[in-house]
């Protein structure tokens, strides 16, 4: 008898829990389909920035020669700039040194030799 009572309580509890969204006055939050084009632009912008950071890091750790760096960096910068134009700037928090570093002339490897 106790078992049946407990089973009934369990069933009732889950029915109430599952019904809660229908009992609330305010509708539950639900995400509509995000704008796929806007997301694609945001992803492209982040990807371009990440590639610039990787290139910079690979160069600093000696995996890329100065010559290769110069060849690779310009198209990447153009791509990043284009993605910023398409998607708008990042918040200051996320843009942080990546963009400053990669878009400033100071980060060019003019003084670095290919040892």
């Amino acid at each position, binding site marked *: 008898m106790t078992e049946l009572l407990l089973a009934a309580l369990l069933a009732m509890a889950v029915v109430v829990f599952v019904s809660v969204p229908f009992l609330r006055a305010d509708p539950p939050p639900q995400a509509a389909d995000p704008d796929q084009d806007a*997301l694609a632009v945001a992803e492209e912008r982040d990807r371009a920035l990440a590639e610039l950071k990787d290139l910079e890091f690979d160069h600093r750790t000696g995996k890329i020669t100065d010559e290769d760096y110069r060849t690779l960096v310009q198209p990447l910068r153009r791509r990043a700039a284009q993605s910023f134009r398409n998607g708008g700037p990042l918040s200051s928090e996320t843009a942080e040194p990546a963009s400053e570093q990669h878009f400033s002339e100071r980060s060019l490897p003019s003084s670095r030799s290919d040892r």
Partner: protein
Amino acid sequence: MPDLGRAALIVCLGLAVYAVVAGAFAAYTRRRRLAESAENAVLASFLATLVASGVLLAALLRHDFSFVYVWRHTSLELPRPYTVSAFWGGQEGSLLLWLLILTGFSAAAVLLGRRSARSLLAWTVPVLGGVITFFAFLLVAISSPFATQAAPADGLGLNPSLQNPYMLAHPPFLYLGFVGLTIPFAFAMGALAARRSDELWVVVTRRWTLVAWMLLGFGQLLGAHWAYVEVGWGGYFAWDPVENAALMPWLAATAFLHSVMIQEKRGMLKIWNVLLVVGAFALALFGTFLTRSGILSSIHSFTEGSIGPWFLGFIGLVVAGSAALIVSRLPLLRSKTRLESPVSREATFLYNNLLLVAFCLTILWGVLYPILTDALRGEPVTVGPPYYNFFLKAFGLPLLLLMGIGPLIAWRRASLRGLGRTFAWPIGAALLTGLGLLALGAGSSIPGLVGYTFCAFVLASIVLEFSRGTRARRALAGGSWPGAFAQLVGRNRRRYGGYVVHASIVLLAIGVVGSSAYDTTHQQRLRVGETMAVEDYRLTYRGATSERGANAVEVRAVVDVERNGKSLGTLQPGKNNYLAEQQISNEAAIRSDRLNGEDLFLIAEQITPNGVFLKVLVKPLVNLIWLAGFVFVGGALIALWPDAREQRRLAVRYGRHEALAEA
């Protein structure tokens, strides 16, 4: 309380069916309340499974033999920890543990998804509900742990080989890994069903995959250690079909964790990544099918199997359904980017993926071949360790080498000049190691020598990566060396956690090569007082003892051990005669040398007060395998640790859309 257990499982099944039907209808018709109700059904299914599990656990602890399951897998004499582990010691209980983990993970995925990926949940919930439905149905209709009978006075006991501390942890870890692969699968299918072309599903599932992969890998190492200390044949991995079944999804998940980086960084391999996620999940189901169908004989399998056809049908449904969904969404999955150069970081990731998948498929073929020949010819053709060992070397050694090459190559493309400069140190270290080992006599095994040379190359490349990265970080930000090192790891936990995992694989490889290519085996009959010599060890038989343990008669051969004239104490290999189970188990004696990682491994047969047949194995470096497990978990945890900077970046990318949608 069996009725409560049964009722709880029926409630769970009802909730799961509701999550499928209501969830799919809500996603299709965009009904907000119904969608949240379906999510709540997934959450509540965890509560219902928790109740059912509590009932079974209570029955086990109370030795309630009116439960057929408790009677079949425990006895009054069974020690308490193994009475608890009997929960997963049989078919029905282990299925219930599976369902408990599945509903628990699904509930966690829903709760976390509500915060970070609400827009993906709509179609993910029905997929999760579908998988829960299958397992709950099995437990309700096919293989119930709550079958009852008139209570006998005592139970049949637990299989002696399961009465080992490692069996307290090995199966749960393995199940956590297997079941964890459901979540990436559900999110991938949910994203495809919702026609999403963005990478939110990748961001959400990457961490889930890493968790499942870590747990599955650690679970396998625990299982290997269990086999080593309990099964008593001196090995730790025998290419048993069930062991292979756990290895295959791990290999597929390893490939995914690498290739997903290419998708994130370059927008490539989208179809490949979805296929890997589906493959890992399907292989986890296939492993479960192998263990439970009774289709093959293995020390790890449950012999009673009426659920095989159901599993086969479900695997077919998963594979066919996923394939249809992927094909229908191919235009969304096409990459715009192409591989720029065959000599680049992304290219090495691709080679790594091809080797991992090829190895996985080779193992799958080795598992399937005996089953197919049995079905077609009526006579199974056994595929033994030589087949697997050949492919382990053929694919494993290049994979090892790639672990060293990959981190040293730049993204996009690398020139020969850059490569020469980067590779000089690791190649030098590898050559020095190889020549040194050759001079020390390690040339007796060419694969062993090549393996160690590659290990040196990988370790040198990892050290180089850390040192160059730290130097670059310090040059950029200043500060102390330890500070620069901490910043380096902290700012890219995935990369450097990954390198630590690579180091663990090197440790594993060193241990496997040492203990298999350079081990020594010697066996001899000894009378009391007689001595045998193996390598530097001298072993003297002192006689036999017999004691009544908690639930077994324990017979031991007493063997004095000396090394280079110095006494190392006494080892006592022997046998346990389990009374309730009426089975005898081999109890190996192992002495580990913590300094050089070597084990002295003794197996005793035909033990009498006058003599013993002693098998002695000396296994160099075998303890590095177990050490590798801890390093592996450490590396995975570093990679898993939340990165506030990355989270802020993702919040900007996705949060805005989620927030706009919620407004």
